[in-house]
């Protein structure tokens, strides 16, 4: 039984999970937990908050499983994740200024990371959040333009041209300060 679950698509698994199959739900968790956690971490590297956001996202997956209507699963789950991120952002905005939520480099283990990589992360960090999330989704989470368009409510063409524009700006900045 287990091997056959592993071979199923995300969409099929979620459909089963929404009908109460907890094994299927467990597979969904396993497939997406690393991706979601890293998405959050790349957006705003505070371990505790990322853990909360990850849990919260999965909690909503369970709670709203019946509202999954069969579209692309990664879009669905990332939409939830993204909303959670911004909701949290919204709530903490009052108590914490924007900047402190961003990458806290101290959270990384600097010894194991290449200087160049750290520099790139810093550059990503300077992006405004609408650009940052798109770059993270496209370049780090390896999501396609149409997927991203579904999640952010835009069009694939708009997303693509935006990504290219962001990369162009980042290039200048990355090499200027390297």
């Amino acid at each position, binding site marked *: 039984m287990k091997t056959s679950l592993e071979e199923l698509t995300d969409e099929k698994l979620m459909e089963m999970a929404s009908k*109460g199959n*907890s094994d299927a*739900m*467990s597979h969904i*968790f396993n497939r997406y*937990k*690393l991706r979601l*956690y*890293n998405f959050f*971490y*790349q957006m705003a590297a505070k*371990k*505790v*908050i990322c*853990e*909360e*956001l*990850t*849990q*919260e996202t*999965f*909690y*909503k997956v*369970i*709670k709203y499983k019946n509202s999954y209507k069969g579209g692309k699963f990664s879009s669905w789950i990332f939409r939830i994740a993204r909303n*959670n991120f911004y*909701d*949290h952002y919204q*709530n*903490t905005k009052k*108590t914490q200024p924007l900047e402190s939520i961003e990458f806290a480099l101290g959270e990384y283990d600097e010894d*194991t*990371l*290449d200087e*160049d*990589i750290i520099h*790139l*992360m810093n550059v990503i960090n300077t992006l405004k959040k609408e650009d940052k999330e798109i770059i993270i989704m496209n*370049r*780090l989470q390896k999501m396609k333009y149409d997927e991203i368009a579904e999640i952010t409510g835009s069009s694939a063409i708009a997303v693509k041209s935006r*990504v*290219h524009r962001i*990369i*162009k700006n*980042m*290039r200048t900045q*990355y*090499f200027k300060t390297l």
Partner: protein
Amino acid sequence: MKCIHIEDKIVDYIEVNLSEQEIELITNHIRTCESCKNTLEQTKEMLNKFNLIPDFELSEDLNKNLDEMLESEEKLALRNGIVSLGNNKVWGNVFKIAASIFFLMFGYVARGYIERDAQQNIAVNENQQRNKKLMLGMMENNSPSERIKGVGYFEDFRNPDIKIIEALVDRMKNDSNSNVRFAAVEALSTFSESELIKSSLIDVLNLEPNPSIQIEIIKILVSSKDKRALAPMKILLGKANTTKYVKDRINIAVSALL
């Protein structure tokens, strides 16, 4: 082809996402243009670096919590089956009670996953939706203790919606039990800046017979410095059946407001 056009297409070029024609055009241009060559090399390098940003591992705690969430989900699925008896009138109240307990328990289970850090505000929405339903239901209950419990949930709402405020105002004005009315007044006092609530309090002051509640309302209106309270207070002062200590309190309040 101009250099500016090249920059816009450079990512597509690197990812071989252009027509053969365009690729040829760009390749030819780059051969002779140092600046665009540089653009290509740098962009390539940077895009490669993206792939080197590591994935961060989930902590043991997080993994454990996710596992627990899955376990609860299994158990909940079982309970769901039992609770969905629902519509039979005989089971009506049993269902309501079971459902409330079910919601309360799921609330506690879910709270374990959601509430951790002192400083985080996540997922208040979830509990709010649940509490709102519970609350509105409880305020119709035959038991005054249950109605008071429902009113008590008001504290959990940071931005209570109009439905809840109206339900509380209704309890304050119309509940037959004075302890429930008192509890409603206390709950509403936490949002005493609201116009709706202030004017409801003033309305109630004209009609509420219980002296303790009268005094409670007077205190709230005085602390919010609302001069509109003066009129109903003067009326109370004039009434023969107003208790003496309420009249004393009003006299103090009137001086405070003027």
